């Protein structure tokens, strides 16, 4: 299924590739042919964060059967938690030189730091919030949705509504998160200058480490007995109930885990791109994440990482070559993959003997006529 060989290869490529790029950036002269410029480091770091989001989507979609159309919300919340820490690090170096308040609050004429900003100057607290805020939101949302047995397209629409509601909320200035402009102008993270090449290289390697960690956790979960039950729930939920399982608790565990992985991805993303704004909550971002997973191969974990990297490199190339056509290309890609490669890029490997986890869900028999 997710074989040892493929997993090892994935980790070696992700981690080795990131370390190699960082070394080539740090220890080769700029004129050298093998020198990796800083923008490539930032770009790849960003993609690895997206790969974590894709991994999170694949966990709930590929294995739990929940199509999430709002997963970027958890990514963005993790990002905001990190952004708040970075804002507090600016101190007196802001435009207004206020040691206590971020620039946008001074601009809005606020006198005191809102209560929910306290603690974020302290990194361990911010790191805890990166995990807790997406995790608790997922816990509450998931508990209510799964307990009420909301499934399928209705659940997908609710996840979309969730991210849209957050988008609107974070756009408001009086929410205290910088409104439209979000959080930006970061200076340093844990004492390192966020603009410095060495910090960027470090963040790239860190992103690779966290991606590999998240991959190993996800792999452990889906290969455990829990994972087998989760797949059973995905395909024939009611059958698992009659066996005595509670599908809602299985979905809830994987849903919260997925949200936490997405949140950590978001937290690593923000210092590398230097900004977090409400645009990250936009439904289109979440849908794009689903496309990455579909392209790579749903229910394979490795495919999610691969898909996120392929589509994002494609996007970077496309948006500079033919910017106005990118969305059409993305749409065409989604349709093409669905029609021609239902198991994504990983499906191509499957032809050569690596068996994917996904099999078409069987029709559910007991949902027929009630009599």
């Amino acid at each position: 299924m997710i074989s040892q060989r493929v997993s090892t290869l994935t980790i070696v490529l992700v981690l080795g590739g990131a370390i190699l790029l960082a070394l080539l950036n740090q220890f080769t002269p700029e004129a050298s042919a093998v020198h990796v410029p800083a923008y490539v480091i930032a770009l790849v770091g960003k993609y690895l964060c997206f790969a974590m989001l894709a991994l999170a989507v694949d966990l709930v979609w590929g294995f739990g059967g929940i199509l999430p159309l709002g997963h970027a919300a958890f990514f963005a919340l993790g990002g905001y938690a990190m952004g708040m820490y970075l804002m507090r690090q600016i101190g007196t170096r802001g435009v207004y030189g206020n040691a206590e308040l971020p620039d946008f609050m001074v601009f809005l004429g606020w006198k005191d730091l809102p209560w929910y900003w306290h603690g974020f100057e302290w990194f361990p607290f911010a790191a805890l919030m990166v995990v807790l805020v997406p995790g608790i939101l997922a816990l509450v949302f998931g508990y209510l949705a799964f307990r009420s047995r909301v499934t399928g397209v209705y659940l997908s629409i609710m996840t979309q509504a969730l991210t849209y509601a957050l988008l609107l909320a974070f756009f408001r200035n009086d929410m205290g998160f910088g409104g439209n402009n979000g959080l930006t102008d970061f200076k340093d993270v844990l004492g390192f200058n966020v603009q410095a090449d060495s910090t960027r290289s470090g963040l790239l390697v860190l992103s690779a480490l966290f991606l590999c960690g998240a991959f190993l956790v996800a792999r452990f979960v889906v290969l455990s007995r829990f994972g087998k039950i989760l797949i059973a729930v995905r395909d024939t939920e009611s059958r698992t109930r009659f066996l005595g399982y509670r599908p809602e608790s299985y979905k809830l565990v994987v849903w919260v885990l997925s949200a936490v992985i997405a949140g950590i991805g978001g937290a690593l993303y923000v210092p590398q791109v230097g900004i977090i704004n409400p645009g990250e909550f936009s439904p289109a971002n979440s849908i794009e994440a689903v496309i990455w997973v579909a392209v790579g191969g749903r229910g394979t974990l490795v495919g999610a990482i691969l898909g996120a990297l392929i589509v994002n490199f494609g996007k970077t190339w496309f948006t500079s070559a033919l910017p106005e056509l990118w969305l059409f290309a993305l749409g065409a890609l989604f349709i093409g993959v669905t029609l021609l490669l239902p198991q994504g890029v990983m499906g191509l490997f499957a032809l050569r003997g690596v068996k994917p986890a996904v099999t078409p869900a069987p029709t559910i028999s007991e949902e027929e006529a009630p009599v």
Partner: protein
Amino acid sequence: MTEADTLLYLDGVTVSFDGFRALNALSLVLEEGEMRAVIGPNGAGKTTMMDVITGKTRPDTGKVVYQAGTDLTKLDEPAIAALGIGRKFQKPTVFEPHTVWDNLLLALAGDRRPRFSLWAKETRAERGRIEEILETVRLVDQRGRRGGDLSHGQKQWLEIGMLLAQEPRLLLVDEPVAGMTDSETEQTAHLLRDINRTRAVVVVEHDMAFVRALGVKVTVLHEGSVLSEGSIDHVSEDPKVIEVYLGR
């Protein structure tokens, strides 16, 4: 007979869907260790009865009592399954991407909570039990095959095997021989009789030859209530039953 001697006791159970009465004051008593065949024309309420017992459907009125003390109408499906009531569906429903072995593993009685299954390792006892069930349902050679790749009859048996793995006290079996060949049907009758040595079984079936082969007490349902009850010979001579089956 009082409530106290019985395994399952249904009294005056009524279920309506949009004004249509799927069950109409149905009463049924099942003793510990009994095997019962339930027959009836389409729409008689056989599957709805199973739905009510397993918690999928809540009755509008009536009592459903298990082991003299437990009111099943207050519980949901996993809670009822945990009490020892297993159900096999009309269409075989197995976990298609999983192997025969894993299907049985997931069905084995045990802790059903995520915090257990995340860390669970296959134990020697579990392996032994699975081997035993593979033997019983004649799937020893198929253990490594995906559930979805089995033939129709093998899926039916796998599902019966999964039911056994749950170690229920009461098995509800919905049309176990639909679509089976004659020899498969005969083997299934054997299997059910075997199972009945240790557990109570309710079999819903259309196939009269199969019901006759089981040789147990028969309950005939019609329009949501019991039309006739007794041995197969008794009910097949009952003029009311003849009218329902032949009169339309």
